[in-house]
């Protein structure tokens, strides 16, 4: 265990009454309807109890009464800022069970769009994190860029936020003709902005002071909590399902897994989590560029879409590397056109469960930063 920096003897010797502060569900920096019951000793967080479920929409119960294609719009709404990524493991799992081989073009579009959505997600994550730290301006720069990505998605799928684009066996529609040029332009602007944000926010001394050595999550505890995604990688463990168990066509592309190495503080602190996200955006750009180079423009994206989906009896756990971590669907089929059970392994849910461990002993203002660095979406936590 690493040492907690801000519990000093002076503080613990002052015998003061503890204050119970209810933070949320309506609070500017709980990123949604999350309620945190915080026990404060002065400004030090001594205990923390998250109360979740304010956005519980019974996804798993709904899924039991839906046909397989009808579930996809609901899956979009789990983690509503990276919908493309959400759809990917679900359709891949069903394709595996149905033994459908999707065409090359579909795979390429899926990879490109997942990576674009990963960029969009990380942009929001860093932007809102900046907002939590009091820096308003990077937020709007990132949102300006995210609009471009959303426009590309809208041109392809028709939806701006919730796409229903990846279908079992293919895609809902073919990409628009200017697809390649749009993405090339978007990547150029994304890189420009990233260079600016690095200087404006991530390398700012005040920002480093606020985030370095704060909310440290050591690797062993991170594993024990089942944390995945950028948070786990920030703790120094290079686990990325795209490399560890390559799905789709990820093994064709050359990219690195950024890990936290404690450049300005300790491994696994808030700054590391952000820099990992930041560097992942660059890796995603690299993947997209490679994919665009070999992109097969011929082919029908809907040729393998089955008219009616009826799964064989059985069960499957399908997973993919979401921007927030490992998103898994445990689908059990009893041979009907509706699933027997769909259980979601929501990365935000698991990551949030490590929050009390991360934030105990830090200051109240740090709690906001730690929560921001976990990058939760309550739609996914509560399902």
């Amino acid at each position: 265990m690493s040492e907690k920096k801000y519990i000093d003897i002076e503080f613990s010797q002052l015998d003061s009454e503890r204050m119970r502060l209810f933070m949320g569900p309506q609070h500017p920096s709980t990123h949604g309807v999350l309620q945190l019951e915080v026990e404060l000793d002065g400004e030090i967080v001594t205990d923390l109890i998250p109360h979740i479920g304010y956005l519980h929409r019974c996804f798993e119960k709904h899924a039991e009464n839906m046909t397989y294609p009808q579930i996809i719009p609901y899956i979009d709404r789990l983690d509503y800022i990276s919908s493309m990524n959400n759809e990917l493991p679900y359709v891949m799992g069903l394709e595996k069970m149905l033994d459908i081989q999707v065409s090359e073009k579909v795979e390429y579009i899926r990879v490109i769009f997942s990576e674009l959505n990963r960029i969009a997600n990380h942009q929001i994550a860093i932007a809102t994190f900046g907002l939590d730290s009091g820096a308003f301006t990077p937020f709007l720069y990132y949102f300006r860029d995210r609009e471009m990505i959303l426009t590309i998605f809208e041109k392809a799928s028709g939806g701006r936020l919730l796409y229903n684009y990846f279908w079992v066996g293919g895609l809902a529609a073919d990409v628009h003709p200017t697809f390649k040029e749009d993405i090339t332009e978007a990547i150029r602007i994304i890189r420009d902005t990233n260079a600016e944000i690095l200087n404006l926010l991530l390398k700012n001394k005040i920002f480093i002071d606020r985030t370095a050595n704060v909310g440290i999550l050591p690797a062993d505890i991170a594993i024990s909590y089942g944390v995945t995604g950028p948070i786990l990688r920030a703790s120094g463990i290079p686990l990325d399902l795209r490399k560890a168990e390559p799905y789709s066509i990820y093994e064709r592309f050359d990219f690195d897994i950024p890990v936290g190495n404690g450049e300005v503080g300790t491994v696994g602190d808030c700054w590391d989590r952000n820099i990992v996200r930041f560097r992942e955006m660059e890796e995603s750009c690299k993947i997209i560029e490679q994919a665009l180079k070999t992109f097969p423009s011929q082919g029908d994206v809907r040729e393998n879409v089955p008219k009616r989906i009826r799964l064989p009896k059985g069960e499957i756990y399908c997973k993919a590397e979401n921007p927030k971590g490992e998103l898994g669907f445990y689908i059990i089929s009893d041979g009907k056109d509706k699933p027997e059970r769909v259980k979601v392994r929501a990365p935000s849910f698991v990551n949030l469960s490590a929050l009390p461990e991360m934030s105990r002993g830090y200051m109240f203002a740090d709690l906001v930063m730690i929560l921001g660095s976990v990058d939760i979406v309550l739609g996914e936590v509560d399902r």
Partner: protein
Amino acid sequence: MKDYFKNVWLGVWTALIGMRITIDHLFRKNVTVQYPNVHPKDKAGWMDMPSNARNRLYVDMDECNGCNSCARACPVNCISIETVRSVPGDAPPPLASGGKRNLWVSQFEIDFTKCCFCSLCTEACPTGAIVMTTEFEYSSYNRYDLVYNFVKLQNSMSDEKIAEVKEKWAEHQKEKKKEAVEPK
């Protein structure tokens, strides 16, 4: 001691770097689109609304054959269709595209407060009667105004006509029953 001065220097220097970036942006072109004045559908450019954008649904009642596929495909059950079967010899007019119709569609309601704009209904439709449009400005003060009955809206069947076909079908049923009970 060295660290101390380095930190102080970094604090000032990175703040200055940030200030240079923001002052640079102060004189750049703004990206805001003045929405009601500049409509996304009119604005030709990078951020305009594509023609395949999924917004309010539209149903062409001249094309709808009342097959209920869209209602079954809908994940949120926002479409409710009522049909009346036609008696022999009194078939509804054929589809605008030429197909035959056997059902009078007496009610075609879409509840846009529920609609999730997933476009599954348009995929399920065999005749292409239900389509997504780019129309998105249809908010209203009363949520019952968002329940669209396309039969009424397009006046494809008047109330009298609905009553008439319903009566005809009921009579037809009665006759059938009679025939079934007392075969000649």
